[in-house]
């Protein structure tokens, strides 16, 4: 890399009429040369009358300076990149080492054991895995349709004056700390679920399917899932809207030229074109919902049992760690088991992100490649 720069620099110098800059770019990165002030001084003389040899000396010096600052800049960048790698390796390595007693003792059965009893030294992830997926699932089922509809509305149907305002609001919504949503959940969503939605569900669908029956606590996977869903909506909606906006005008006009109505155009042309964008945003939303801690902890009821109904309480991996990790440090196997839970969460999000990216590339290869942004 450096050699390449060198060649370029040489060729520039070879052209006599090319005057090097008086102060090298990025010179602030260069180490202080002992004769720095002298160089500056002669640079100011340059405008009046400078001899040819002075000029050459100056060019050489400046060239050396450019090279050095380039090199330092590159080195800095490389360190930054290296730091990311190092960070990831450290997180993974430390977690693996700390989780090892649990991995060694329980093996793969850790995943499907549903007992979690610190008192008896039996640890299993099953209830927490199920709880995590329940909350994530409810959140996505709730969020995706609303997000896509709102994105379509904003890109094609909303009046101009509304678009700016709503888009800004949506982006602001994505930036609100999750604890605020958790508090909102307690004061609004929980009473709403407890007094209206859950009794209604139990009295209608609940008569036919146990899945909707229950004792209407308000707290539970439904409230937690809905609030996480609220957090996911702006994420999915903004990415989908951005994808919609990027559809080439020609495509839209072609649809109209073929005689389609606006609704047909949106449904048959725009929507299929943004499928990769939607998938990307859903994967982003999945990641967000998977790791969401505070809001879930406040709303889910924190009970280590496998939910059999949408009205049941449950427990997620992240809220378990938040609730009990400070205590778990007292017992090596207990803390190892909790760290292993954290590792599982890490692996799930890695796998999902990778799969999502692969899927996205495959889909984008087929149609409208490059016109659609994804996660």
């Amino acid at each position: 890399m450096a050699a390449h720069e060198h060649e370029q620099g040489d060729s520039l110098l070879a052209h006599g009429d090319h005057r090097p800059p008086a102060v090298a770019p990025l010179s602030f990165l260069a180490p202080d040369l002992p004769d720095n002030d002298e160089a500056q001084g002669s640079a100011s003389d340059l405008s009046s009358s400078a001899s040819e040899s002075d000029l050459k000396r100056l060019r050489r010096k400046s060239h050396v300076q450019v090279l050095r600052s380039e090199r330092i800049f590159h080195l800095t960048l490389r360190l930054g990149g290296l730091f990311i790698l190092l960070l990831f390796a450290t997180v993974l390595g430390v977690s693996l080492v700390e989780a090892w007693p649990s991995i060694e003792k329980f093996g793969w059965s850790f995943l499907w054991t549903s007992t979690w009893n610190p008192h008896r030294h039996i640890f299993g992830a099953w209830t927490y895995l199920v709880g995590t997926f329940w909350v994530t699932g409810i959140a996505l089922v709730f969020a995706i349709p609303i997000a896509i509809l709102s994105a379509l509305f904003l890109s094609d149907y909303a009046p101009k004056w509304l678009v700016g305002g709503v888009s800004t609001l949506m982006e602001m919504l994505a930036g609100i700390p999750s604890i605020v949503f958790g508090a909102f959940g307690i004061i609004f969503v929980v009473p709403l679920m407890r007094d209206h939605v859950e009794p209604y569900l139990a009295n209608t669908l609940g008569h036919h399917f146990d899945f909707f029956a229950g004792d209407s606590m308000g707290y539970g996977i439904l409230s937690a899932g809905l609030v996480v869903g609220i957090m996911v909506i702006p994420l999915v909606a903004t990415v989908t809207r951005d994808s919609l906006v990027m559809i080439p005008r020609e495509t839209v006009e072609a649809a109209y030229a073929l005689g389609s109505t606006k609704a047909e155009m949106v449904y048959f042309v725009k929507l299929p074109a943004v499928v990769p964008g939607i998938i990307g945003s859903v994967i982003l939303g999945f990641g967000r919902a998977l790791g969401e801690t505070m809001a879930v902890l406040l709303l889910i009821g924190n009970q280590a049992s496998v939910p059999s109904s949408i009205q049941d309480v449950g427990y997620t991996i992240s809220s378990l760690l938040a609730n009990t990790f400070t205590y778990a440090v007292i017992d090596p196997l207990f803390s190892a088991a909790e760290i292993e839970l954290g590792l599982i969460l890490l692996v799930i999000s890695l796998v999902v992100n990778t799969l999502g990216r692969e899927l996205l590339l495959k889909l984008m290869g087929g149609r409208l490649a490059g016109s659609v942004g994804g996660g």
Partner: protein
Amino acid sequence: MKFVTRYAGAAALAGLVAMAGVGQAQAADMSISGSSMLFPLEQVWSQAYMKSHPGTHISVASTGSGFGISNAANGNITIGASDAYLTRDLKKRYPSLVSIPVAFEDTQVIYNIPGLAKGTALRIDGPTLARIYMGKIRFWDDKGLRDLNPDATFPHSRIKVIHRADASGTTFVFTDYLAQTSKAWNDEIGRDLSPAWPIGSGYNGSDAVVAAVLATPGAIGYVGLGWINEYHLDSMALKNRDGYFVKGSVDTIRAAGKAALHDPTFPDDFNQSMVWKLHGKDVYPDANFEFWMVSTALPGSTMKEVKKLIIWSLTKGQNEKYTVKTGFAPLPFTPLKSRLNKILNHILPGNTVNIESGG
């Protein structure tokens, strides 16, 4: 300009290092961390102590009893606060730790029964409470509850069990009562700061438990004296060892403390639960000590300061304006003196301590 900033940066760094050095040299710097239950009392204590002992700095943090115990043992903090005594397991793992009781707390059962007249006095015993928390009693008009409370009319509504989600000393004391009184509970779940709850829903912190109980018709939960007083809650009278039903209060907790310390079989190092074991008409069966854990490996100068603080806390600090106001009962001192002296001598040998009076 470049040079100026560089030198200014170096100077600032040197200053920081110097300041840190000074901070380390000062012996009167102490950190207390651990139990969230004891935290409010430690806050008012540290304020008052720093006022009357200029030059001393105490930082207090609420991090959970588990953190308090393990970090006091490895020297990260000066004093670890814990709701639980040093069990045999813990003593084996952290042999350098000494536990000092600093106040009394309790755990009380609160409820939200729709249709029940406010102020109705409810009574419950350990086995019945354990059956509720194991999901074996599911309705408020269960026969067991009606037999204990012949005067109350219970509705036929579901019992919604509420417990703590975080590891908590309140939970330890509560499950201790259940484990001591119910064989089934002792065999299946046992006592723990964070047990494997068979049913119910969990909330983070006592405030959240209170909020959930108040908001959920049919709920039952448990919190400490401080919360009962703060939120003016009704609590159930618990059956004690001698068969009396006693409601938790400063007086009944102190009665339990006195009974424990007058009991010659109670260990000198206080490393025993006082839940359930005690006899007496007005002894609340679910009261407990709050402990400070101190490592005997602390350096001598720090230990001197720690000891000064402990003695202050056990004397002036027991005043009701600190303890009762933050939801604790003061320690009774007459029987405590000789036992406490043994412990304090253990962490700083060669000195005798005079505890004149308590709150």
